[in-house]
């Protein structure tokens, strides 16, 4: 399945958002996620199914003003 993560296309075997995070190597990282423009909180990641072409955003703390 092709998933777009932070604007980059990935071919993945994961079928849930939680599995995608592990598959891409974000395990244990302090991150927040959104799919198709909507926030997906941590408890919902393993209940959130991926569909082909889904747009996933993965963000983390960064410098800000």
């Amino acid at each position, binding site marked *: 399945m092709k998933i777009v993560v*932070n*604007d980059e296309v990935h071919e993945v075997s994961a079928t849930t958002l939680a599995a995608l995070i592990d598959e*891409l*190597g*974000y395990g244990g*990282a*302090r*991150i*927040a*996620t*959104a799919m198709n*423009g*909507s*926030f997906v*909180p*941590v408890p919902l990641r393993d209940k959130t199914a991926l569909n082909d072409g889904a747009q996933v*955003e*993965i*963000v*983390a*703390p*960064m*410098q*800000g*003003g």
Partner: protein
Amino acid sequence: MTAHFYGVELSSPLMLGTAQYPSPDILRDAVQAAQPGVVTVSLRRESAGERAGQAFWSLIRELGVPVLPNTAGCHTVKEAVTTAHMAREVFGTEWVKLEVIGELDTLQPDVFGLVEAARILSEDGFKVFPYTTEDLVVAERLLAAGCDVLMPWGAPIGSGKGLNNIFGLRALRAHFPDVPLVVDAGIGVPSHAAQALELGYDAVLINTAVAKAGDPAVMARAFRLAVEAGVLACVADPMEERDMAVPSTPVAGKAMLA
């Protein structure tokens, strides 16, 4: 002595941004020199390989200063609200510096979107610090939307021009004597920060002025001293301005030598 922001008294009226420093070490030195009440932080895309955000988060935790996440760069209500939700989860705080940018040359807030986003977030339990203008009517709307703090700009973000509209900022202070007010954006040098506090503002938020100084740590210390001076000056009740001169040396008793 600082105002309470959503029931929390900050250790300093200096709020310091963490962006644009030459290196993480210089950021650390600047924060330690500034001793800010909060540092502002943001969210950006994370790469699984680089994990830049994880290193930054470790540094912030090590500094031990409370964080105020922002929604910088958001141009729509939806973007800002979604970003705020992500920030609440990542940073573990309901505080959010709400930015809904309306115009790219000035980075001035889209105050209509700001009010709407502030209402949505306040209803959802967020403690919103809205980046706004000095407009009194917008301020009223933000308070009605649930904000207990206002953050009017001094001048456009990153411009360093100081307090562009002193009259407007003074009017805002007079109109909302009990609302914590923070000058956010546009402060370029410590005297601007002192001036804001002399006007009775409760805090100032500074980033570029420190990060882009030749020596950020020294500038950070200068800002720390400036806000201390500004607070003391406000407490001490400054004299009123006059249009004409009044001699400070007593005239009585002056020798007649003419």
